[in-house]
């Protein structure tokens, strides 16, 4: 190869490279401008104030696996279970930018109830729940190996003879409130034993250390071979096929309890983010509503063995209403939940 040829090819290469770089720079310009206006242009961070591997994790992953297609971005989840959710809300979500790129995925029932019992240092009003994802009622369940307690009537009858130990996730929990209310109404004596989470509660009931347990139904309904759900704190039995033995507490005992949704998971955001970026907020809410009707979401939920029937969209107004009403019940039973009665 001659020097000339070398020169030529080098020049050609430089020309080509220059042209490519120029074209690239030009082509990037409008794209960057378009990105500046578009939302989202980066991943969305989700703060989960519970442990990885639990119901919230399952629920959040199923939802975001479909939402990402509508929002055209990915989600990054971080789990901050400390201090009954306060670390997630206060330390992490609290310090995150109010730019609509940071969301929290909380469980309105137990978290709000906890804050009634122990006032947090942050202002609850600084967050807004923007979409409720599910509605999972509190239930009472027994181990299938329990030979004495097979139905809710057995439980109440036995509870009138002796104090029964009830495994619960924590004291300040909608399902725990249901048990307290039932005991107060029927005269049965129930001793709530907090076992720190659904897994430990199921273990307590399965191994016979607890007489029965109270949890969100979703946490037990997948374990039909081990447990029988015998009562539900809702208006109706939402899953008659899967909770065949479950009576509706209000109907059975003539009580007037409001539905106690022990699982009421919802996405939340800082109010400041909505005020600063209403356009972004609109993109978020518009796309997330599409998820509920997307067949892929139903498929994802069913795959996790969670009941599809519990999935229901709750608007920000619905969420606010729920927070108010769970706060009111918490206030009513505050003394029992704090051991001051």
């Amino acid at each position, binding site marked *: 190869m001659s020097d000339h040829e070398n020169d030529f090819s080098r020049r050609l290469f430089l020309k080509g490279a220059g042209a490519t770089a120029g074209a690239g720079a030009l082509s990037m310009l409008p794209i960057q401008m378009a990105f500046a206006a578009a939302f989202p242009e980066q991943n969305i961070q989700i703060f989960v104030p519970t442990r990885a591997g639990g119901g919230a994790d399952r629920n959040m992953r199923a939802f975001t696996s479909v939402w990402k297609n509508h929002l055209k971005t990915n989600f990054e989840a971080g789990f901050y279970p400390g201090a009954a959710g306060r670390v997630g809300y206060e330390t992490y979500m609290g310090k995150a930018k109010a730019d609509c790129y940071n969301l929290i995925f909380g469980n309105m029932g137990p978290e709000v109830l906890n804050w009634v019992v*122990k006032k947090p240092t942050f202002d609850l009003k600084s967050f807004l729940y923007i979409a409720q994802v599910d509605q999972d009622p509190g239930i009472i369940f027994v181990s299938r190996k329990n030979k004495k307690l097979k139905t809710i009537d057995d439980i109440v009858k036995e509870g009138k003879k002796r104090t029964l130990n009830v495994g619960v996730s924590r004291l*300040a929990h909608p399902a725990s409130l249901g048990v307290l209310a039932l005991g107060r109404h029927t005269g049965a004596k129930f001793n709530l*034993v907090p076992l720190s989470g659904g*897994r430990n509660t199921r273990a307590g009931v399965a191994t016979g250390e607890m007489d029965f347990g109270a949890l969100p139904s979703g946490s037990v309904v997948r374990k039909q071979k081990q447990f029988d759900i015998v009562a539900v704190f809702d208006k109706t039995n939402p899953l008659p096929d899967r909770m065949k033995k479950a009576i509706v507490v209000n109907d059975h005992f003539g009580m007037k309890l409001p539905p106690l949704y022990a699982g009421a998971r919802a996405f939340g955001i800082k109010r400041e983010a909505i005020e600063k970026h209403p356009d972004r907020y609109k993109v978020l809410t518009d796309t997330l509503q599409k998820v509920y009707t997307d067949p892929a979401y139903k498929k994802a939920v069913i795959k996790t063995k969670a009941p599809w029937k519990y999935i229901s969209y709750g608007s920000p107004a619905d969420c606010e209403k729920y927070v108010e009403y769970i706060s009111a019940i918490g206030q009513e039973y505050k003394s029992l939940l704090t051991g001051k009665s």
Partner: protein
Amino acid sequence: MEIDWGLFVELFARTFTFWWVILPAILLGLIVGAIPGFSAANTIIILLPMTLAMEPEIGLIFMVALYASSRMGAGIPAILVNIPGTAGAAATPLDGYPMTKQGRGQQALAISFVSSVFGGLLTTILALLAMPWLSQVAYHLHSVEMIVIMLFGISLIATIAAKDTLKGLIAGFFGLMIGYIGADVVYETPRGTFGFLELYDKVPLIPALVGLFAVSEAFAVIEGESILTKRGKEAMQKAGWAETWEGVRLAISRWWHIIWTSIIGLVIGVVPGAGAAIASFVAYQQSKTFSKTPELYGTGHLEGLVAPESANNGVTSGTLIPLLVIGVPGGATAAIMAVVLQYHGVAVGPDLFDSQPELAYGAFTAMAVTYALMILTVLPLARYMSKITVVSTTYMAPIIISFTLVGAFVPRAYVFDMYLALAFGVIGYVARKTGYHVAAILIGVILGPLLENYFLRALRISQGDIMVIFSSNLGNIMWVLLIISLFVPMYLDKRRKRLSKQAIPITTDC
């Protein structure tokens, strides 16, 4: 349950064909296990997209192999640089690290690998064969019985304190006090948190662990040129393959010790919520109790290394039993495995034995095959791994501190935990310099909160009746065994001393 030997043979053969999944998982597990703060549980979460893309059976084999190998990996830094990778390896450096200082790091690693593999393999096979019976353990070990098991572990403080009772007990009680920081399990009332939300859920274990052991060690070693003693250095320079084989031979010579301490791990692992940390401390305490040379523990004693390593690998198969038999995971990793399988549409529980036996039994065969392949993979590495100990402390100390601070951060992703590790490092350093026992502090920090949990739960169940701790027959038997295991060694020790005193004049006369 009838044992279907044909199915087992078929499953073992089938699992071996997945060597291409198991070997990378072993390597990954060894690495994440060796890095403080990382664990099988958080690695499985990180790799969730990958495991979800796999077939359920392959995903399960991958997770099981990762789980088993990470347990062994945690022992490596515990032995070589006094950094237990997880709480389950917290008892490993008690005798492993002194061996390293003496230039016997290679032997210590080989002993640890052989004990882990044989302990793990044996308990996996036992778990597979005796699953219906072993699962019954969880029905009998309730809060009251667990209180006694915790006390078995905590009583190690007393044995550690034997040389300097006052300082040992002060260190132990100091650890227990730290362990009680945080919200109580019943009313969630925060105690001693100094307003830090980060301490609300108790003092996190990994920062305490790496701070007390590793950071304080880094502070201490920087005062010298090497972590090795002069004799240790010479021994390391001469070390070759023979040292690895010596380690293997020594471990095999304690085959009976491996068997019974790994069974302790298996039984404790079956109880949901109990874990490798409890098992390894209880095994260490029992090993010392029944030893003919208890005074050698803590000085680089072979059995002091065999016991915790066999026990914490015994726990691994144990935690799968409650998951598969009663549908309740025995530990965090088992819980995450269950979640991954749920994504695949596999409901984990007793039904699995009927619906998908290749998965239910396959979890155990995968674990057994992992252990079998692991020894071949890891043993040749002992020689090279142990070379890290000859690195000058000028480089070693900053590396240890950097690694441990990252490790402290990883489990909760709280920057606060890095400061906490440093604070524990200072506490550990002061303790070392003043002759207090770091291990006694750590036992209090690890087992104290667990003891409190079970104690408060028992009190809650009995509605405040303290006598509940003597309310179960099994519990009462265990109380008696605890008392025996505490006082018999004291009696034997006195007897030994008396006999040796009597023997001296005879020898002199001769």
